[in-house]
């Protein structure tokens, strides 16, 4: 409504402007005339009205004479040598110094406002008028560049940063939309953005998920840098909402892309009171859970290891706590996450299904602030604040469990002898070194430790650090340089049998250096380029006798080393009219250095012990991968776009696993001499539509992956056999349709998504023994055709909100026995072709109530309660189905993990008089 009124106003003003035929030239003679006097004279002779601060023109005198002089040329001659700039809009003249932004001047209403004020108070000074218009203004005018350098029609680069006025933190994912050109830009993780604009005046809408929106006018003269501040519109609990990047959805190049703020994550009902971003991701179209309660995600029918998880550039190789019931990231520090599943930007590579990028909070620049909470399983706390006010901040978090206490309450003897513990900690320091440089340092550690019935001990840990420097070479060029190190290790002791008892330690280290550059070219080309190099050092570990009693033969699973180097470039530009394009290319080179001799096999034969024909020695192997990334966006109407993308991805590291869920002893393994990196090609099309606060999109995709890794029957990953003997490579085909409709504003928010998704695998070969399922295609483990998710949040008032999830999906494929037979009087069963059957359909409803305490802003502690009911209907969803012989009959059994409603209450607090997310 407001927009319509504004448009109307503009129209009226414009009409008025033309009808008045203003006087624009003047005659006179000025010698050492103080500028203020000159202005008074000009104002009396013309319709021009001046706006400026008196102090900036103090020392300026005008020396000029003539008739029918144009103001423009007079000001030009007079002001420029004094390093002052001016701006003429209709009859208004604004004078300002340097690049400084002239704030809060109502650009279009100037003439009108001026007229009124003039009538009211003839004797006002220009300074007064300046101040007055500032107050009255509805939309600010921001001027970029200097008119001196201005060349009409020339594209200039407007770059800058959007920060939170209150905390000084960058606003991530804010979008700037230039209404006249229907183009836009989004801010990156540090709040930076770039726009290419020709000279002229534009109306710009700035929007952010958490901050709402504001409109302003942008006058571009030449390239320049602007800082934009946004203010949270909301007080503590009135957290209005997922103001998501509405423009992104329709206007952005991204498809199959989701970004969610920590706020959304918090409102979704959760199991056992733990906020969990991966569980939220599982509610999005095209994303599936890798099993009830699992933190693994399955994207578009791929496997769990085809997703790359980054937290502030650190890759995390195991994202689960406590068997996967919790995610290894504390939601306290999470700012937001982005999930790319269609066209993955060229700067990312290395996984074939998705990139899951988590960014953490950067810390409050003004005040100390802390928050925390307790749930039945964990306690968590985080703190942040300035180290140097406005310059340098820190954020630190800790989360730990007291599940040992729970275990000791259980009556089962084996469980009493079990222990389970986990924690995660993180710390970051963010420094604005100067205008051109900012530095972020982040460290993360998660640790899990459990022992079961004193027979198995497991421990695993992720550890990582990243340091990244953002540098502005010029307004046109900026770069982000990072060094990253991540280490994943696990160890286990298996004491089930004294003679076989063993211990195993596994270490994967990932060291990476990367540079990402953004360069704004004229005519709206946004160029990104950069490169990265990763050194993988794996020690798959040794299987060693657990103690002296054990006679286990030590097995060295081997060390592995690989270097993955990639360079990329991509360009986003407007092709013609409403059609824009992002074209990118990533070229990656991967080399595997074998650390032990590689077997040679007879040609055209299965890789097996019998077919070994000597050794190739310690041979290395290179793979090149040329990965085009192309995306098109065609704006059909203002709120409707069509998009298409093509994407190729390669993956050089994968998990050795023949289980359905990821287990804590799954080993990551590098592609090697025999095992080729899987490569996927994906094509997507989509329609995006915004309508009255609703956001809808439909996307279809087709994906073909070659060299997908599958496992031979009955193999063991801790055996001496080289891995090529244990697995086979095949082809995976996946296609599907994803539909989502979101409502992001109002009392009722949330989304409804539907996914149709198919995925099948074919492993066939002429060579005997190299086929799976007799060389026929079979459903992949996560071929889940139908999936429907509803996430809703109803805000009753500022203190109380209700949330509901409804989840439905087709059961995942399973292999069931199809025949029974007798052997020595026992009943044996024989299984069907792989994944020929399906588990029963999955259905779940969750519910939660959020209650905030007193809303007094000045209160020292704000606390809130969250009551959660997971699986309200208590439906016994099948985790798995198995069969056993029971009283002479074979009986199917269904195992459910959360077979009853699970009610939890958790308490959270915020400390400090600071309005956070």
């Amino acid at each position: 409504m407001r927009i319509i009124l504004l448009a109307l106003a503009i129209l009226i003003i414009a009409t008025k402007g033309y009808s008045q035929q203003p006087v624009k030239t003047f005659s006179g003679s000025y010698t050492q005339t103080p500028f203020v006097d000159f202005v008074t004279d000009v104002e009396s002779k013309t319709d021009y009205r001046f706006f400026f601060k008196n102090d900036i023109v103090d020392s300026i005198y005008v020396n000029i004479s003539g008739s029918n002089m144009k103001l423009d040329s007079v000001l030009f001659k007079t002001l420029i040598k004094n390093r002052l700039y001016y701006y003429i809009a209709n009859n208004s003249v604004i004078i300002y110094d340097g690049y400084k932004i002239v704030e809060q001047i109502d650009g279009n209403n100037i003439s009108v406002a001026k007229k009124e004020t003039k009538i009211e108070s003839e004797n006002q000074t220009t300074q007064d008028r300046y101040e007055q218009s500032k107050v009255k203004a509805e939309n600010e005018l921001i001027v970029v560049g200097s008119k001196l350098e201005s060349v009409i029609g020339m594209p200039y680069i407007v770059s800058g940063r959007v920060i939170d006025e209150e905390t000084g933190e960058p606003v991530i994912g804010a979008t700037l939309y230039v209404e006249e050109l229907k183009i836009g830009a989004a801010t990156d993780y540090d709040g930076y953005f770039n726009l290419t604009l020709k000279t002229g005046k534009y109306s710009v809408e700035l929007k952010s998920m958490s901050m709402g929106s504001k409109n302003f006018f942008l006058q571009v003269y030449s390239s320049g840098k602007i800082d934009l501040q946004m203010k949270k519109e909301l007080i503590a609990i009135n957290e209005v909402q997922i103001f998501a990047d509405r423009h992104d959805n329709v206007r952005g190049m991204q498809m199959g892309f989701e970004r969610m703020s920590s706020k959304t994550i918090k409102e979704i009902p959760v199991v056992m009171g733990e906020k969990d971003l991966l569980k939220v991701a599982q509610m999005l179209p095209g994303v599936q859970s890798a099993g009830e309660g699992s933190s693994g995600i399955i994207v578009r029918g791929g496997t769990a290891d085809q997703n790359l998880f980054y937290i502030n550039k650190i890759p995390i190789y195991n994202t689960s706590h406590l068997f996967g019931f919790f995610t290894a990231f504390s939601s306290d520090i999470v700012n937001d996450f982005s999930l790319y599943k269609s066209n993955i930007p060229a700067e990312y590579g290395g996984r074939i299904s998705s990139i899951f990028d988590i960014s953490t909070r950067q810390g409050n620049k003004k005040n100390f602030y802390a928050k925390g909470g307790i749930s039945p399983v964990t306690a968590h706390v985080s703190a942040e604040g300035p180290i140097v006010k406005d310059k340098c901040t820190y954020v630190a978090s800790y989360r730990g469990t007291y599940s040992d206490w729970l275990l000791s309450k259980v009556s089962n003897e084996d469980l009493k002898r079990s222990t389970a513990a986990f924690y995660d900690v993180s710390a970051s320091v963010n420094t604005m070194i100067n205008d051109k440089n900012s530095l972020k340092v982040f460290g993360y550690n998660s640790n899990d430790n459990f022992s079961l019935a004193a027979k198995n001990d497991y421990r695993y840990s992720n550890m990582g650090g990243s340091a990244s420097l953002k540098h502005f070479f010029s307004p046109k060029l900026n770069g982000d340089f990072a060094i990253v190190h991540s280490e994943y290790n696990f160890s286990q002791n298996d004491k089930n049998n004294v003679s076989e008892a063993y211990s195993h330690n596994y270490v994967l280290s990932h060291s990476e250096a990367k540079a990402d550059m953004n360069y704004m070219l004229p005519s709206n080309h946004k160029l990104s380029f950069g490169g990265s190099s990763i050194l993988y050092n794996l020690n798959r570990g040794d299987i060693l006798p657990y103690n002296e009693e054990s006679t286990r033969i030590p097995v060295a699973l081997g060390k592995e080393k690989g270097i993955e180097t990639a360079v990329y470039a991509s360009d986003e530009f407007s092709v013609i009219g409403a059609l824009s394009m992002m074209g990118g290319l990533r070229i990656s080179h991967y080399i595997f250095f074998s650390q032990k001799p590689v077997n040679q096999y007879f040609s055209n034969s299965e890789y097996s012990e019998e077919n070994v024909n000597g050794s190739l020695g310690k041979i290395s192997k290179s793979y090149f991968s040329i990965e085009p990334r192309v995306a098109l966006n065609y704006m059909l109407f203002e709120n409707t776009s069509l998009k298409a993308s093509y994407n190729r991805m390669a993956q050089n590291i994968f998990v050795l696993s023949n289980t359905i869920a990821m287990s804590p002893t799954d080993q990551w393994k590098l592609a090697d001499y025999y095992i080729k990196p899987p490569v996927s090609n994906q094509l997507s099309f989509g329609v995006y539509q915004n309508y009255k606060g609703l956001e809808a999109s439909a996307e279809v995709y087709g994906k073909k992956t070659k060299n997908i890794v599958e496992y031979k029957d009955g193999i063991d990953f801790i055996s001496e056999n080289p891995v090529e003997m244990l697995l086979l490579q095949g082809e995976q085909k996946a296609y599907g349709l994803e539909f989502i409709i979101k409502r992001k504003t109002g009392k009722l928010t949330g989304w409804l998504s539907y996914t149709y998704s198919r995925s099948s695998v074919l492993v066939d070969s002429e060579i005997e023994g190299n086929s799976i399922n007799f060389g026929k295609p079979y459903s992949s483990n996560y071929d889940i055709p139908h999936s429907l998710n509803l996430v809703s949040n109803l805000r009753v008032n500022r203190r109380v909100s209700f949330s509901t999830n409804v989840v439905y999906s087709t059961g995942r494929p399973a292999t069931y026995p199809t025949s029974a037979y007798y052997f020595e009087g026992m009943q044996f069963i024989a299984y069907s072709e792989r994944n020929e059957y399906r588990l029963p359909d999955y259905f779940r409803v969750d519910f939660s109530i959020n209650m905030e305490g007193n809303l007094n802003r000045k209160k020292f502690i704000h606390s809130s309660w969250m009551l959660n009911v997971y699986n309200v209907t208590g439906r016994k969803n099948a985790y798995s189905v198995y069969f056993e012989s029971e009283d002479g009959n074979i009986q199917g059994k269904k195992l459910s993990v959360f077979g009853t409603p699970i009610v939890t209450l958790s308490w959270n607090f915020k400390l400090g008089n600071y309005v956070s997310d």
Partner: protein
Amino acid sequence: MLAIKSKYLLILSIVLIAGCIEDYTPQLNETVEKLVVDGSIIKGEQTQRVVISRSTSVYNAQFIPESGCYVWVLNSNGNQFLFNETEPGVYTADIPQNELAFNTEYTLYITTPDGNEYESETETILESPEVSDIYYERTSNSDWGEGSSDGLQFYVDLYANNYKATSYRWVVEETWEHRAFYEAPYMLDAKNDSIIEMSTVDSLTICYSTQLSNNIYTASTENLSKNEKKKAEINYDKIENRKFNYNYSILIKQYSLNENAYNFWNQNQKQNINTGGLYQSQPSHSVSNINNISNKKEIVLGFFWASSFTEKRFILENKYFYSLQFCKADTVDRNKLGIYSKNLYLTVLGAYEDGKSILGIPESQTCIDCRLNGGTIIKPDFFK
């Protein structure tokens, strides 16, 4: 390996988070009946058996014999042994022990009535060492996640140094004494409406049951530096099942296995304990060593294995008593014996003032005749 670990993970998750297991009967496609071969050559057995049948649907498991096959075994000495069908689908041959030598190889050949020819891979009889120590631990094994379950876990040690076979299978045969709740000094003769005094008081109170364990126990020393394995788990039973109330014994037969026979038995062992856990491996195709000679793609189920065995009996000296289930008994009205239509054993509940016994008739004859609970009243010689 993983399957066993996963069991514990599973339990943990179940108990922690209200998991549950219930019956579920999904519809399964009808499949073609596959040929099933259950055959072996066991040194030490007088009669060798090859059982040929057809597989059935899962929910209607039954034995469908394949009659009229031509079955013979060829050994590496070049001798053939023809098997005769003695029962439908059961083919036997008495092979002289001198033809069943260690390290001799055997191949099974079958021609079915429809003319298909099958052969097995070659299997070798390997020598099995003496069964080493058998022992047990009192433990609460919560494999099935049903709370506390006090029981006995039996173990066997394997010492096979200097023996060629590195894989073994143990077949466990349990024998236990069980008793009826009441003694049976009298019997009601329904035909004559009279009460007969039994000759030996104990005769129906104490029984001995013998049962082959339906579980498969295998071991391989493939990954071990010595051909020995300590504390291999064999059978487990809860004390509340009352097998350990009186005399208890297990007989262990230790069979040597070839590598692929181990794979066959081990696969079925794993499938038997499959609890559908979190980190469960995918079920795999059945291991078999029988092929259709002219159509390698035909799936044949079962296995043909060659082996030798040694055996050892273990007698449990300690008793772990778990109270018998109480049985109610009604007094018998000696004047109304006519109401009973069949012979019933009677017990003595006490005595009347006149010194006559109060006879009782238990709610069920299983409370007085232990044979109705299985087993025989003949005491095996290995119990003292």
